[in-house]
């Protein structure tokens, strides 16, 4: 990156010129940090000096200091793209490198949206719940678990026992005498042998 950028003379910077950087940097929200701090997810091969120069040359943010740490990810079963996760085939996702910078000027994040209807959150959550429920039925111990009806049956039984409800036969609609539907079909009287 150029020692002098479009934002004028900045802090002491590196002199190595990088022309076509091909990586992403994610700004992450951390409400616990003071407003002069900002946290980023950076590539694993990034160092503190890289981030300082990148922020100055790309965004005009003057940085006083950088803190860096790497978060190891949890071990999980099989790779994320596996169709059926094989048991005991362990996979650890790549570590995530995070950096915190101290800036000259404070920065407050824009507000979180209160109404999530543009993202269709209701339907999204409902479908997610449905998928979760159907995944439950695939588990081995699903049959040993009490069904959803059991609760309802218990409630009904309790109501009957306490006398809140009275048992009676199902209400059938009285439609009168039985009628012959197939009137045109002639049934032979008796088959003589």
């Amino acid at each position, binding site marked *: 990156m150029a020692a002098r950028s479009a934002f004028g003379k900045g802090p002491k910077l590196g002199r190595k010129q990088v022309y076509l950087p091909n990586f992403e940097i994610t700004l992450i929200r951390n409400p616990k940090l003071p407003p002069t701090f900002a946290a980023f997810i950076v590539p694993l091969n990034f160092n503190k000096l890289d981030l300082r120069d990148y922020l100055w040359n790309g965004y005009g943010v003057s940085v006083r200091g950088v803190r860096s740490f790497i978060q190891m990810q949890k071990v999980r079963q099989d790779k994320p793209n596996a169709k059926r996760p094989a048991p005991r085939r362990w996979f650890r996702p790549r570590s995530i490198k995070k950096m915190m910078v101290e800036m000259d000027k404070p920065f407050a994040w824009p507000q979180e949206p209160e109404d999530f209807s*543009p993202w269709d959150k209701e339907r999204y959550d409902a479908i997610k719940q449905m998928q979760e429920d159907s995944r439950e039925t695939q588990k081995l111990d699903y049959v040993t678990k009490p069904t959803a009806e059991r609760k309802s049956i218990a409630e009904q039984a309790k109501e009957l026992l306490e006398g809140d409800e009275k048992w009676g036969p199902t209400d059938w609609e009285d439609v009168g005498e039985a009628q012959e539907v197939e009137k045109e079909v002639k049934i032979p009287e008796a088959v003589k042998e």
Partner: protein
Amino acid sequence: MSTSTSLRPMARRLLQPNASQQIPPSFLLPSIFAPSPQIASFSSTPNSFYPRDNNKQRGVSSQRRTGLRQPVSVSKTALPTPVNAKDLPKIETDPDHGLWGFFHSKEKSLATPEEDAAHGRAWCVEELRAKSWEDLHALWWVCVKERNRIATENYERKRLNAGYGAHEAKVRAAMVRITQRGIKQTLTERYYSWREAELLAQQDPEINLSADGVSYTPKEFTEEEYVDEDVPEEVTEEEAIRAEEALKSQAIPPETKPVEKSPDAA
């Protein structure tokens, strides 16, 4: 660590300045040198284990919140009560702060799927071939910033569990990536054509690749006299009109393509 734990309290007692100064009176001498009576202790643990070492901080634990053994100068000062984050004064952010470059808008922290989907196509290589290096470099940085923006909002969407929108962001990011690929292809093509031109120039006697001297000395050549043999000597008026009409009928206006919206990212 050379002395054993049982010896240490005894040694300390002896080294105490008060003890050395106070000499017991003479009438107590028989009691001091008398054989010690046998005492059956209630506890089986030998008394010499306590205090077990010279650690002044023994028993002080931050995990068990024991506090200090002695009060300190600030012990009487009450601790300040924490203020709720909502009651704190609002932070005024500079409208020109560089970190706004990580968001699509200053009003909300993530764009809606409709806003994400409102973009055009990527730049194609044919368009990029006509651009200068400065333009291409500027466009590359526009792409880099857009990708950072998308990544930031992706993270925020997941954190808030906001709902749909991942697909729109993915398509938008793909457009940016295609533009970046086009830039790289254009630059690669330019590099190969430059190298081929250099090879040609090495064989060309007219071009001087060494640093000194004139780089290009064109050879003298005479233009051959062009003799057109079958020039129509006279064109009649009728023929001229006919030729004009034929030209007009051929001159179909070129197909006008609808001007496509320039890519939002670029």
